[in-house]
């Protein structure tokens, strides 16, 4: 204890060949991911550049690149916002049901069933949308035009096929529902058991317990989940390409058959038959979509991760 001679320093561990190779290759794989993401941006920009530089009259539509993208962007946002407004409350309710209301034994299976909604391919949603959902909504559109026609959203004329912006939005809502509810389920499930039990011990009903202990805890998780859903809705392609009857133009009318298309659906519809500058224009619109979804996703991850730090401190 009192000795002053320092203990002999252990020799620094020898770096073996295998270690170096393995550490190098794993790090390389990680860096490769960064490069891929950078590559996506670089190659999109390089292929979009000719469209950015081209004179306005050469761009399809003749109003320049921004004139071409603006209605598409409007349609993209419109469909995504409808989806978000419908899906978020529903997803929160479903998450609450599965975490706190469903019979314990069935809850895991129910969660799995909701997850199945996320597994179904986009193109199959499109099939379902055009064959089942759209015709099912036609009577509602006729009713809405007659009774709610004073609102700009339901001005009509009501579509006879049901392939409207509202149909597309509702279909997107079904598609993003499992994403939002999965994240909501996770954060609701992590609400501190002590808080919940304390609330119940004080005589709170189940709803009061949820309102006081679970919802405040899960709020930022729900917001983050909703934004991830938004990111997914913005980029959804074929379901919309199949269901939406698009004719361009900006309109708030949700139930007529002339709607603005969305960026992703427009690319899917136009790209196979496009050549020359049209391709560059489509890639430029894809670049715009990429930037928007990237921003939304980064914001969402930031919100979700902030909550993770917060809960880790607890």
């Amino acid at each position, binding site marked *: 204890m009192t000795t002053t001679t320092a203990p002999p320093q252990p020799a620094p561990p020898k770096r073996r060949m295998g270690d170096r190779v393995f550490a190098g290759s794993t790090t390389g794989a990680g860096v490769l991911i960064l490069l891929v993401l950078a590559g996506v941006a670089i190659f999109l920009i390089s292929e979009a550049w000719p469209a950015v530089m081209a004179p306005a009259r050469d761009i399809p539509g003749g109003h320049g690149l921004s004139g071409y993208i603006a209605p598409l962007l409007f349609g993209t946002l419109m469909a995504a916002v409808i989806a978000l407004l419908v899906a978020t409350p529903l997803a929160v*309710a479903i998450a609450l*049901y599965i975490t706190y209301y469903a019979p314990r034994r069935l809850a895991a299976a129910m969660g799995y*069933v909701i997850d199945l909604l996320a597994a179904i391919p986009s193109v199959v949603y499109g099939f379902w949308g055009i064959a089942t959902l759209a015709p099912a909504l036609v009577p509602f559109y006729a009713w809405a035009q007659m009774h709610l026609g004073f609102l700009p959203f339901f001005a009509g004329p009501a579509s006879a096929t049901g392939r409207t912006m509202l149909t597309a939005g509702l279909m997107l809502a079904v598609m993003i529902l499992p994403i939002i509810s999965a994240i909501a389920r996770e954060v609701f499930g992590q609400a501190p058991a002590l808080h919940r039990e304390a609330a119940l011990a004080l005589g709170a009903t189940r709803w009061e317990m949820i309102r006081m202990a679970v919802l405040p805890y899960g709020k930022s998780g729900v917001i983050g989940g909703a934004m991830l859903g938004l990111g997914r809705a913005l980029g959804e*392609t*074929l379901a919309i390409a199949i269901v939406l009857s698009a004719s361009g133009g900006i309109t708030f009318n949700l139930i007529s058959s002339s709607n603005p298309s969305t960026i992703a659906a427009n690319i899917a519809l136009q790209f196979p038959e496009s050549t020359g500058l049209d391709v560059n224009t489509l890639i430029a619109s894809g670049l715009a979509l990429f930037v928007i979804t990237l921003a939304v996703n980064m914001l969402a991850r930031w919100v979700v991760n902030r909550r993770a730090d917060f809960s880790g401190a607890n």
Partner: protein
Amino acid sequence: MTATRQEAAPAHGVVEHSRRLARPAPWGLFALGLLLGAALSALTGFSVVLTVVYGVALGTLAVYAVSRAVEGRRTSFDRLVTCIVTSAFALAMVPLVSLVWTVLSRGLKRLDGDFFNSSMLGIVGEGGGAYHAIFGTLVITGITAVISVPIGLLTAIYLVEYGTGRLKRWITFLVDVMTGIPSIVAGLFAYALFALFFGPGIRLGIMGAIALSVLMIPVVVRSSEEVLKLVPTELREASYALGVPKWRTILKVVVPTAIAGLATGVTLAVARVIGETAPLLITVGIINGTNLDPFQGRMATLPVFAYYQLTQPGFPPEFAIDRAWTAALILIILVMALNIVGRLISRFFAPKTGR
């Protein structure tokens, strides 16, 4: 002890016994509401949808009103929320059931041997199948997995075992962000990449595989990372204590312990990309004949095949539309099967932790 308690209880006054509804009462009230709903919709020409809509609203209202009268404000509100939350779950089941039913009822018609044995080469109208598309999908998905699984796994190992500091934080964050890349943008990326070297208008199977890899890698990284984190640190430390180098510890201890979870993650990632249509639409295109060489020209894939058969059916349209639905059915079966296999792997091959 008991005596004091008996004395104390009356001193605080009578304990209030709140009145509660009997257990089956809410169910009965809800059923009553449904009946009323049926009657109400019968007034305006009976329809199932209206019956359910009116019924659920009236049933919820009935439960709330009676509970409010008997049990008071707080409990009744609790019951109201229970009704709403349960209805929300039921509502979410409607599209799932409806979708599966639609695809099954329309897709079974052409689910025959011919569909799996013939391509669309020289087919006009009746007959034809998706032989070329099914194998095209298998080839492209296979290449995607071959590209994505090593990169994804190595990255996950880096993040869990080696990563430190800023690089790790950046990679974690960007992998998360990458999960959200729209599939069509991944397709455009692959197109832009190849168009730069091979000229515009290029369509190759390998382009599709690269586009799908951009979508698949982050999924593999995320799921593998979660699984590797679950491997107990004690196992690693025990291995180090025996003088085993780090890389051998990872290969012989960490990865084998987590192998079931890793397999599940990879299976689910494959399930995610196998149904992707948009990137393949713009990078691989479609042909009628069978081409299984990913480095030579266009290929057919199942999702794209389904899409074109539905949207460009030709004349007469009904045969192509039947083929489209059968292709959609096969897609759903593939995806569901992969999902189930993934869950089964993790259930049956998970290591016994003994805790």
